[in-house]
């Protein structure tokens, strides 16, 4: 089994996805406390709900 400090074995698919990861968002999140990160998730979920509602309303008007 791999030791804690050993890097993970590179996987070409993961490495390909990694190139598109927005690290600016990660760096912003790492500046937040854990509680702030979870609260941000809750606000994101509320926003997602509102987006879905708006999308459904727009669809129903077609």
């Amino acid at each position: 089994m791999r030791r804690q400090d050993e890097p993970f074995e590179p996987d070409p698919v993961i490495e390909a996805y990694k190139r598109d990861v927005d690290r600016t968002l990660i760096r912003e999140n790492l500046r937040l406390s854990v509680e702030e990160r979870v609260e941000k998730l809750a606000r994101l979920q509320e926003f997602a709900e509102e987006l879905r509602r708006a999308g459904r309303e727009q669809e129903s008007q077609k």
Partner: protein
Amino acid sequence: MTDFRALTSLLANSAVEFIIVGGTAATVHGSARLTEDLDIVYRRTEDNLSRLVRSLAPYKPYLRGAPAGLPFSWDERTLRNGLNFTLNTTLGALDLLGEIAGGGDYEKLLPHSIRLQLYNIECYCLGLERLIHVKRAAGRPKDLETVAELEAILEERRRDA
């Protein structure tokens, strides 16, 4: 919508032994991805099953996606006879996992977990390295994208350390 604060507070204040895993754990470590359910690995001792049943009973747990009217009894026997439960509650979506692929059960995951202070409660969350390990072990296509972000988080943290 899932009330993460209410769910984690409820479980912790009811002395339920659990470890946060999945997307919420990823958020704890800095993920920018949206998750809409709380995934926890729960300890499967008789006492803990009782605490879990008692704490969630008022919030009407029911199998998520099951046809309405399907008999489902929220009690210790149901938990004992099953392992992983994908639930809706009046506090939102909660996945109760007895074990996870690549990680095992509560006892196996606990040494690889971190203790969080969250909303004036204390609870355990799977550590970032073990989270990456279990996501890799799950091997689902959707997990590969998640793993990429988690590994990027690990790299950023090591860079800052």
